[in-house]
């Protein structure tokens, strides 16, 4: 019987697989604690299997990547060229930096051996003898915890040469990033691990599974995804796939922040909880005297949803009627959120109530992307900065209605025109907030601001003309 620390009990609607040990009474990150709980038994099981059979189980499980894109993990693994003779690398993406996302933090701080076990199994499945945990610089304590955990695992022969007498060798190294969001993008991460600026590589040809780290086949998986692998081995792919809903299997951790009574993390079966259940039943509803206004459902890059929206889905109802879905009835899964024009992303749900001005929200998001654009592609480097400048003006009350249209046009000129998905990540929030809150943004502007100079040079020009 597992008990949790006072005030940290999981919600009854939760299904704890990955977060089983988070906030658990008497739990600590040591290997002894992990072993007492049956730790590394799944590795013993896996290492007796054929590597290909593990990949098959992961495919059968239907596991989709938990980092943001939701790409099938098992399928990704099969992209390693079959006739490959180069070393294969596995990288754990622990750069958790999508605003609104805070799940990997708890895994690496409280349950590092779950990740290491998942990684060793995954390395065995894909034939990787060296793995790196690329961890964001802002988790300094976790980097130490992981290094210690790897040393503990090595001492027990779960890592190192001839793992558990199987003849399989694997080393895991911890590598700290340096506070750049773009390192969460897998090819940017690889460049960073090679000791360079994290400029993402263009795909094709640089699909990491074929041309990754040092131009060798490289599998990059999110922390949570790698942890799921361990549970898939334990349960079998078929049993795992019974969790969640069709094509959206297993559990995932939803991180709720912003304007709710009880923000926090909730591990649920994918698609088994609706927006209403999540925000009202699990998070306690809006703060007193407030009402919900808008929700970003999958990290700040995901398109915002209005809480009063109704979506018309593809396909037809029983009598040829339109299929309608209200915001509150959206199941929290990849496909449903995609059908509503947004994405499940990294599971970071940011909630805004009626006290929030959308121009302020937009400006905060724009500041983030302007700061984090790596600068490699012109539309993104220049565009993200311009979007921030324009939303700065809207917030300062210095914008004209035309600026809203300009802002929108800048966003659409970034989207789809960059090497990596940062272009979409930075422009989707702008596109969605303008599409859904245009009147509110325009109300913060005024036509006479058209005549305002917007920078010192323009101000100097204006003064000069006045004196002339």
């Amino acid at each position: 019987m597992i008990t949790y620390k006072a005030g940290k009990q999981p919600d009854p609607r939760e299904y704890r697989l990955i977060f089983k040990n988070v906030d658990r009474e008497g739990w600590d990150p040591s290997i002894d604690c992990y072993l007492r709980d049956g730790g590394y038994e799944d590795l013993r099981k896996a290492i007796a299997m054929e590597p290909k059979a593990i990949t098959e189980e992961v495919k059968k499980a239907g596991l989709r990547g938990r980092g943001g894109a939701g790409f099938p993990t098992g399928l990704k693994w099969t992209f390693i060229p079959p006739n490959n003779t180069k070393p294969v690398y596995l990288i754990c993406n622990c750069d958790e930096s999508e605003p609104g996302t805070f799940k990997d933090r708890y895994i690496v701080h409280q349950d590092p051996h779950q990740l290491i076990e998942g990684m060793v199994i995954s390395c065995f499945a894909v034939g990787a003898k060296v793995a790196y945990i690329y961890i964001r610089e802002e988790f300094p304590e976790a980097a130490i915890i992981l290094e210690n955990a790897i040393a503990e695992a090595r001492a027990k022969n779960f890592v190192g040469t001839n793992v558990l007498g199987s003849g399989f060798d694997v080393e895991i190294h911890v590598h700290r990033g340096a506070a750049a969001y773009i390192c969460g993008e897998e090819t940017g991460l690889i460049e960073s691990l090679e000791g360079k600026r994290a400029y993402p590589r263009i795909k094709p040809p640089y699909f990491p599974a074929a041309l990754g780290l040092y131009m060798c086949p490289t599998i990059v998986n999110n922390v949570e995804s790698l942890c799921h692998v361990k549970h898939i081995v334990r349960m079998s792919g078929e049993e795992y796939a019974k969790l969640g809903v069709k094509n959206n299997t297993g559990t995932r951790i939803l991180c709720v922040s912003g304007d709710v009574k009880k923000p926090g993390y909730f591990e649920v079966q994918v698609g088994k909880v609706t927006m209403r259940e999540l925000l009202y039943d699990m998070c306690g509803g809006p703060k007193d005297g407030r009402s919900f206004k808008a929700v970003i459902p999958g990290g700040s890059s995901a398109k915002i949803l209005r809480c009063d929206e109704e979506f018309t889905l593809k396909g037809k109802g029983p009598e040829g009627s339109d299929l309608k879905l209200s915001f509150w009835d959206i199941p929290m899964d990849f496909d449903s959120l995609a059908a509503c024009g947004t994405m499940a992303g990294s599971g970071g749900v940011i909630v805004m109530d009626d006290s929030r001005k959308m121009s302020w929200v937009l400006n905060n998001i724009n500041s983030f992307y302007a700061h984090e654009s790596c600068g490699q592609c012109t539309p993104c480097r220049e565009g993200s900065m311009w979007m921030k400048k324009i939303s700065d003006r809207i917030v300062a009350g210095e914008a004209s209605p035309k600026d809203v249209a300009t802002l929108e046009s800048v966003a659409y000129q970034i989207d789809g025109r960059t090497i990596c998905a940062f272009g979409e990540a930075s422009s989707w929030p702008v596109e969605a907030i303008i599409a859904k809150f245009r009147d509110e943004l325009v109300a913060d502007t005024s036509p006479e601001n058209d005549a305002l100079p917007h920078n010192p040079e323009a101000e100097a020009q204006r003064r000069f003309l006045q004196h002339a």
Partner: protein
Amino acid sequence: MSASILDQNVASEETPGAKFFPPFVPTAALEAEAEKRLAQFPADQKRSAVLPLLHFVQHHHGFISAEAIDWVAARLGIAAIKVLEVVTFYPGFRQSAPGKFHIRVCRTLSCAMGGSHELMEKLCDLTGIDRSHADSHHHPVSVSPCGKWSVEFAECLASCGTAPVCLVNDDFHEAVSADKARALLDSYEVSQTSH
């Protein structure tokens, strides 16, 4: 290679925090770190160790100086510019000394909604830091006149559910509303005198 060319390109400024950090000199510990890190990569991929070595330097010396860049470049067998371009790219690396206690306040959406701007203002008030010249790209760090404190806005620290949050050196603090700023600073004042 002399540091003189680099000196022209390294955006280092004197700050009151410098007195709390020893100037860069290659040490046995640094060399040991280099050997440990280089062992983690293939022999022909020494460049991969650049981030770990810069972290080590910054941790011990507060920031990355031209001398440190030169040393790292020579140790890894790469041109100094290849190290400098990494230093200038990553917001996690500094070219000037921060305060003895460097506070990074999360400014991204959930923390901003939770009051991180108010926290930043309060911290500046209490430590006498003037942030008027700060900008997120070129001058993100502001140091107090005494050099003991510095502040910087960080992008999402990945603890949105416990907003607002901040890092003080390597220590993480959550739910730090502005009214807790005094107690946060005091906890470091105390730990400082007790050492």
